[in-house]
C-alpha cells in the first residue's frame, strides 16, 4: 500500500545570492515514512530540508524558484509561515534547548499558539515528553533548567518540544551527529516509533543510519538529487554511478 504524498517539490531552484545551492529538485515525500537525504558535505541537504518549513526565509539574499507543496498546498502562496512551521516541525543538528526549564521548553510552542494555563499545558508537556522517550529521565526535574541534561537527553527534549505543537511532519537535520552511539540508538528507535504518526525527513551523514531507519533515500550532489528511491534499492543497487561510489565509500 502506497502512502499519500505529504511533501512535494517541483523543479525547485534555490540561490544564496549568486550561488545556486539547489538545482531543479523534484521530489515526493510520502506520508508516515522516513525519508533520508544523503550526500557529501555542502551538497544542499540542509538547504532543501529548510525549504519545507521556509526557514530559508530568514536568510538574507536567499531566493527560491519552483514550487513546494505540503499536504497539497503551495507553501509560498497564501500561507501563514508560522502556521506552516507549526505543521512542519524541525530538529537541529546541535541540540538547541532554550536556557529555561524543561517544562517551559516544551510549553514554548503551545504557548506560542495560544494554549494557556497549567491545566491545559500539563497534559501536552507530559504527552510530548513521553512520545519523545524522555519522560522517565525528565519527570523529576521538569522545573530545572534543560541545560542540565546530557546532549542526547537535550536532543530528545528538542524532539518533544517539536512534537508539542502537534506537527504532521518532522524535519531532522543530522539529529544524531553530536551524540554518542547509545543516544544515537535511542533517537533512531524513537524515529521508528514516531513514523507511525508523523512523516519524517532526516538528513544524515551516517550511511548505516539511513539504511537502518529510512524507507526512502535521496542522494544529493552539488545541489542536484541524483538518485531517489526505496532505501533497500538505493543501498543495494543504486542506479546512479556516483551514488554507488558514495555509498560504498569510494567517492572522489
Amino acid at each position: 500500500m502506497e502512502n499519500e504524498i505529504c511533501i512535494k517539490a517541483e523543479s525547485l531552484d534555490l540561490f544564496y545570492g549568486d550561488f545556486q545551492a539547489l538545482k531543479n529538485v523534484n521530489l515526493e515525500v510520502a506520508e508516515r515514512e522516513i525519508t533520508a537525504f544523503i550526500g557529501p558535505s555542502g551538497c544542499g541537504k540542509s538547504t532543501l530540508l529548510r525549504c519545507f518549513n521556509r526557514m530559508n526565509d530568514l536568510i538574507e539574499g536567499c531566493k527560491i524558484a519552483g514550487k513546494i507543496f505540503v499536504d497539497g498546498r503551495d507553501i509560498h502562496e497564501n500561507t501563514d509561515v508560522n502556521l506552516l512551521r507549526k505543521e512542519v516541525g524541525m530538529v537541529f543538528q546541535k541540540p538547541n534547548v532554550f536556557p529555561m526549564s524543561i517544562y517551559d521548553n516544551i510549553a514554548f510552542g503551545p504557548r506560542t499558539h495560544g494554549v494557556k494555563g497549567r491545566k491545559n499545558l500539563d497534559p501536552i508537556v507530559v504527552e510530548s515528553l513521553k512520545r519523545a522517550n524522555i519522560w522517565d529521565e525528565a519527570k523529576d526535574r521538569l522545573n530545572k533548567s534543560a541545560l542540565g541534561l546530557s546532549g542526547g537527553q537535550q536532543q530528545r527534549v528538542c524532539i518533544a518540544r517539536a512534537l508539542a505543537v502537534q506537527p504532521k511532519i518532522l524535519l531532522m537535520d543530522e539529529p544524531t551527529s553530536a551524540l554518542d552511539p547509545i543516544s544515537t540508538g535511542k533517537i533512531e528507535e524513537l524515529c521508528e516509533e514516531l513514523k507511525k504518526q508523523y512523516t519524517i525527513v532526516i538528513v544524515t551523514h551516517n550511511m548505516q543510519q539511513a539504511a537502518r531507519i529510512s524507507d526512502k533515500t535521496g542522494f544529493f550532489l552539488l545541489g542536484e538529487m541524483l538518485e531517489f528511491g526505496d532505501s533497500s534499492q538505493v543501498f543495494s543497487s543504486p542506479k546512479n554511478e556516483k551514488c554507488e561510489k558514495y555509498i560504498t565509500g569510494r567517492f572522489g
Partner: protein
Amino acid sequence: MAVRQDKTAPLPQKARKLSGRHRAPYTFLKIISFVCAGIAVAALIGIIVFILIRGVPHLSLDFIFGENTAAHPTLVPGLIGTAYLVMIGAGVAIPIGILTAIYLSEYAGKGKVVRIIRLAIETLAAIPSIVYGLFGYIVFVLLFGWGYTLLGGGLTVSIMILPTIIRSVEESLLSVPSIYREGSHALGASKVRTIFSVVLPNAAGGIVTAVILAIGRIISESAVFILTIGMLQNGIPRSPTDPGTSLALNVYYFASDWPELSAATAVVLLVLVVGLNLLATGVGKLIKRDRQ
C-alpha cells in the same frame, strides 16, 4: 625531587646559551608589563586615597542633606539636579537605545542603510562631550529659548550616551546564539515573540549592565552640563524646566572657594560611580547565572 635535580644540573654549553637567548625577551616583557600594570594600579589607589584623605574629614550628613544657603552650600541642589538629569537622560536614551539595538541586531540585516546607521553611531561615540554641550547650548538654551534647564541638559546627555547604549545592548543581543532564534522560529513563533521570549531574556544580563553603566556616565558627566544647566547652586530646582546643578559640577563649582567641600563632593561622586560599576558587574553575573 628528581625534577629539581634536573633543573640544577648543568646544561650542555650550547643548549644553555640557546635557551638563555630565548628566555630573555620573555622575562623582559614580563617585567615591563608587570611594571605598567603596577603603575595603573598605583594611579588608581593614589587617586582614591588622595580624594578620601582630602574629602572624608569634611563629609557630614549636614553637608550632604542639610539646608543649602549662599554662605553654607550643601549637596542638596546637586543631588536633586543629578536625579533629574539621570531620570531625563536615562529615561530618553535607554528605551531609544534598546529599540535601536533590537532593530540593528534583529531586523536590519546587512544593507547599505544599516552601514550608514552604524557609521553614524560610531561617529557619535567619538565626539567629545564638550561638543555635545555646545550643541545643547545652541539648540536648547538659545534656539528653543529655554535658557538653562535640567531638561535641556538631560536631553543633551541622552544623545551623548545613546551610541554607547546601542553598541553594548546590540553586543549582548548578538551574543545570544542564533540556534535559539532558529529553534523559536521553527516552532512557529513570530519574530516579535522570538525577540521577547528568547532573545531579550538571554541578553538581559548585558542589557542591565549597559543601563547601569549609562546611569553612571550621566552622574559623572560635567562638560555637557556646564553649557546647558546653568550650574545654579543657590536654589532648588522644582521642575525639569528649572536651571540647576549636579554633583559633578559641584566639584568644579566648590574648587576655588571651598576646596575641602570640592573633595568631599568628589568622595560622594566616587562612591556613587564605583558603586554603580560594581552593581553593574554583579547584576550582570547574577542574571547570567540565574539562567543556567
